[in-house]
């Protein structure tokens, strides 16, 4: 590090081309919206009785809470007047009130918080289930991290809100109760002390926007610092390779300092309320002492009442503070709720028709009839595509990026809906069959093999729960994955790390093949991986593909020459239209785009050989 520093000094004149960390953008406070509240409470509906019970308990506990200082005041008053009977009665009343308070409080808290958790889980489940149904184009457009933020952060912002509902009811009851009691005890003194409340409310109203701004700034600063940390940890190898430690350290130290300043700023804003409330409390108490004392002197007020006032004054700012906090909590829940319902309102474009049939006993064909399709209907990706894949035929789709290959295989699985024309599987329009049966008949192997956390066996089985251990092993053997699996520490029980990082790309691919084989579909759709894997695994993959293709109707987006040549038919696409189709030899003879693509990928290797060894004979041999 020391070596790099002086050099940096020299170049200080210019700003380095470097940055670290980005904040998240979501707004955290939303405006009050009865629509959102109403929708929240739709999830509370099924648990109506618990909800009502909790509210009743909250009101009861608030009432008991208000009565306690009153009873203490009465007891003190009785003492002053040497009224033993009243003193004892007040004590009994106090004991009952206290008992009622504790019991009701316990019940209210317990019920509300459990209910809040239940509702949160119901909402989260509804969202999660919805993500299983919404169209893939929505999922494509939306970053997983953002969806997770909604499932976690936004849903959790509801927790505070839902847990505070009984608190809100309780605080309102307490506030009204205290006001009623104070006014009932002594109107003049009551009015004077209660005059502090609007003052506090007004001060808070002025303070709140500043406080929120400081809070928001603190949150942004902390998320920036955290994202900088995460970025550096994820890229630590690159950081060390490129000796960026010193510069990144300086960049991060700046972020950490900014975060420090923002946090302290927020602390200042929230701290400032403490002396304000205390000062107002002191003022109210002083009023009680002066005005109350004089009233006692004038014989207009009992000492007990004055004591009760003193006790009340100490607590009546609490509900105001709590209510104001709950207002903020509610605003955050509004922002969260808005985003949650935004998700739940994404229409489900693809669903079973009421009279959808299950796909059973069918001829495994896939047919595109004059299909026009675009993710944005105004800009079609596919134009009037027609072709048919016959039973047990292997068709390779070839073409440049954006030619529509991926859209074709997605449509065959009804991931999207066609704009015009129809896709037929087994002669039936895919829109007329159930999605579940379609999924069980057509298996899909994706370009980037996706593995779940869990054991190898669980990954191969996935949702074919009927597959026994020996079926799994047989599938693995068929795709030449068995040997490497057995070499892993726990064989089939080896747990895969994050996204299967502990095995190579090629091996991950073989496992995804085995998964498709276990599902044993009549139709297989495969998007071949582009990643170049070592020759040894490559051989295994090529062999495995033959096993997978055997006896199935297949559509393959092919990237490897070997796979393309092995196909029964090759469909060459360009800009959403079929340019040419036929067998390898036929297309080579035709000398079109396929010929050009094939030779450009193929010839390069031989050119090398010729250039290096001068072995012209070798080049012609292949």
């Amino acid at each position: 590090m020391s070596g790099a520093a002086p050099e940096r000094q020299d170049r200080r004149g210019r700003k380095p081309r470097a940055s670290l960390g980005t904040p998240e953008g979501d707004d955290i406070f939303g405006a009050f919206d009865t629509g959102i509240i109403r929708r929240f409470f739709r999830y509370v509906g099924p648990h109506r009785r618990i909800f009502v019970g909790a509210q009743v308990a909250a009101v009861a506990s608030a009432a008991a809470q208000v009565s306690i200082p009153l009873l203490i005041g009465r007891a003190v008053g009785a003492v002053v007047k040497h009224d033993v009977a009243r003193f004892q009665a007040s004590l009994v009343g106090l004991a009952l009130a206290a008992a009622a308070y504790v019991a009701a409080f316990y019940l209210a808290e317990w019920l509300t918080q459990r209910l809040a958790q239940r509702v949160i889980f119901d909402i989260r489940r509804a969202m999660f289930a919805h993500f299983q149904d919404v169209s893939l184009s929505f999922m494509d457009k939306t970053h997983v991290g953002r969806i997770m933020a909604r499932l976690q952060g936004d849903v959790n912002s509801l927790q505070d809100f839902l847990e505070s509902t009984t608190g809100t009811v309780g605080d309102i009851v307490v506030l009204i109760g205290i006001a009623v009691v104070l006014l009932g005890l002594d109107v003049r003194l009551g009015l004077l002390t209660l005059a502090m409340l609007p003052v506090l409310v007004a001060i808070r109203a002025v303070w709140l926007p500043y406080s929120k701004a400081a809070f928001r700034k603190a949150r942004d600063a902390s998320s920036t610092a955290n994202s900088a940390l995460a970025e550096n940890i994820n890229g630590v190898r690159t950081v060390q390779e490129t000796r960026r430690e010193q510069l990144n350290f300086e960049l991060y130290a700046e972020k950490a300092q900014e975060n420090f300043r923002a946090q302290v700023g927020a602390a200042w804003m929230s701290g400032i309320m403490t002396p304000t409330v205390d000062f107002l409390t002191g003022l109210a108490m002083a009023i009680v002492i002066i005005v109350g004392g004089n009233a006692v002197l004038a014989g207009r007020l009992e000492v007990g009442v004055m004591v009760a006032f003193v006790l009340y004054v100490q607590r009546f700012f609490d509900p105001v503070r709590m209510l104001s906090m709950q207002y903020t909590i509610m605003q955050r829940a509004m922002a969260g709720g808005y985003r949650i319902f935004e998700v739940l309102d994404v229409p489900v474009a693809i669903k079973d028709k009421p009279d959808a049939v299950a796909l059973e006993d069918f001829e495994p064909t896939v047919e595109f009839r004059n299909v026009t399709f675009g993710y944005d209907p105004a800009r079609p990706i596919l134009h009037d595509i027609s072709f048919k894949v016959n039973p047990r035929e292997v068709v390779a789709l070839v073409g440049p990026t954006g030619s529509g290959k991926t859209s074709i295989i997605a449509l065959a699985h009804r991931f999207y809906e066609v704009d015009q024309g129809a896709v037929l599987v087994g002669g039936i329009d895919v829109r007329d069959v159930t999605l579940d049966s379609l999924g069980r008949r057509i298996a899909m192997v994706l370009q980037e093999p996706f593995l779940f956390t869990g054991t190898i066996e669980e990954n191969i089985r996935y949702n074919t729960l009927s597959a026994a251990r020996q079926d799994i092993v047989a599938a693995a053997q068929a795709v030449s994955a068995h040997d490497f699996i057995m070499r892993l520490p726990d064989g089939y029980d080896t747990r895969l790390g994050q996204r299967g990082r502990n095995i190579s790309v090629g091996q991950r691919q073989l496992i995804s093949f085995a998964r498709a084989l276990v599902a044993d579909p009549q139709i297989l759709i495969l998007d071949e991986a582009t990643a170049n894997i070592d020759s040894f695994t490559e051989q295994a993959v090529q062999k495995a593909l033959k096993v997978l293709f055997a006896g199935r109707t297949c559509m393959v987006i092919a990237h490897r020459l070997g796979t393309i040549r092995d196909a029964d038919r090759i469909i060459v696409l360009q800009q959403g239209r079929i340019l040419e189709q036929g067998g390898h030899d036929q297309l080579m003879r035709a000398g079109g785009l396929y010929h050009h693509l094939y030779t450009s990928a193929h010839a390069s290797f031989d050119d090398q050989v010729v250039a290096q060894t001068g072995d012209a004979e070798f080049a012609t041999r292949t």
Partner: protein
Amino acid sequence: MSDSPPPARGASPSESPTVDVTAMPSVLARIAGLALRYPGRVALITATSLLAAVASLTLPRLFGRAVDQATHLLAGGAAQADAARAALLVSAGLVIAATSARGLLGMASAYHSEYLSQKVARDLRIAFFQHLQMLSFGFHDRVHSGDLITRGMLDLEGARTFIQGTMQPALALLLLLAFAVWMMVSTEPAMALIGLAFVPVAGVAMARMGFRLRVTWLRVQQMMSALTLTMEENLQGIRVVRAFAGRGFELGKFDAASNAVLTFQYKRITLRARGVAVMQSSFHVSLIVLLWYGGRRVLAGQMTVGRLTEFLTYMTLLQSPIRQIAIIFNSMARATSGGARVFEVLDLEPQIADAPNARPLVAPKGVLRFEHVDFHYDPRGRQVLSDVSFEVMPGRTLGIVGPPGSGKSTIANLIPRFYDVSAGRITIDGQDVRAVTLASLREYVGLVQQEAFLFDTSVGHNLAYGDPWAEDARIEGAARTAQIHDHIAQLPRTYETRVGERGVALSGGQRQRMSIARGVVPGPGVMIFDDSTAAIDAVTERKVREALARATETKATVIIAHRLSSLMHADEILMLDEGRVVERGTHAELVARGGTYAELYELQSRSDAGAVLDEAVVAEAGA
């Protein structure tokens, strides 16, 4: 690292959801030690807490006095009215002064402890960040990045809250309690005993609750992260889920994970409600008994009403600080587990660091030599490299080929000293890489890895990563060398275009070309390409290689590949198997020898089945 998966990514060291009580004193003392680096601030917090407690506790006395004044007034009649009124005014003034003082001092104490805690957090954050950058690849292979991020965010925050969630409130509480006890005991010992009886009961209940809540919370978090994983994987693998009609299956997984969280949430809620109930019951019992006993004493004429009011007020004042004991213990437990996890990382010695007498690398020529190098990741594990020796002269190219796991990438990672050799040595112009400074070594050695990690920033920032002060021309030149300039030029904002998270917007081949360009920008003296052209199609790769050859004319170059066409032009080729050099020579020699290399060559040249159509190139061809 494609061909040598790191030795089993073990679970991170401390994952069990408990709070290690035995570690508590040392961890907490260490956090406190960090705070004590700012003694002025600590003294300020102590002083303000002390004064706030004093101000707070004068209130009950003032009230008592006011009540007594009022009652005396009642008893004394009109004669003393003026004096009494004056006394009331004084009391009222004192109350305002006391509450204002309490508020201001309380705020000052809370604010400064927040300030101090944020300062300590900033120090810890920076230290953590810096330390992670220093820890070697061996460490990062073992520990999951998500785990480190959690430590740097949540655990560090946990350690921070100890200062402002435990130290300051505990101090304030102790001072308040001490004063209260003293003031109460010194006036009415029996009353004090009754009034304070609830403190130990409630205190213990709150402490237990706080601690247990923490443990339950850790369980909730654990269950929650399992749920998060389930949801995240579902979303990331949504195409697999849809392709296999796995909706029901996935919802089943979700429900199982979700219910596990709910169970512990319910447990947490019950714990909390119970703790609070115990606290409130004991408080009210104390209060009622105090009122009963005190009332009788007043009735018996042994005590004034004012004193009774004073005691009742003491109790109300103590109620909320006692409730804070739960928060104190919770944050203590949190700080213990969080702090332990942060310190665990901070205490790791970087295995790869500058030797005490390390000098900057001086490499006028740039000859790279491996002398009988052995290597293993783990002394008990298998030998990854055995007796590997070679020499690469400036302007020369060494090719390394071999099956997965044969140790190719390990060789690449040993040269910039991401790991240290177990035996033998690596030298550049005769200087052992362990004897020179890491900064100078890594500046001199350029390594381009297979898995190109791109940062979530602009293309230009990514290319200039190794030299952020590089002139535009140099960056563009590097991009041209890597055959990526034309593509970048087509991007919406050319070099200012944001790459997108982890480079999703670029194809595999384009990302590799980006990473090659990034490696070229600083102009290193030794270039290593670790399978860094695997996803690039053959035509482009040849262009890249030709351009690179011009750029690295005078430099030692090491190319690791499994595609022989990438390295057959090398001056020497090593064939590795299980960490040993099994064959070496030029391409022609090796082919002539008829060994493994020749076999591989035969396999690759006879079958082009593995040749890849790079989408981007196909697009260019199609256009």
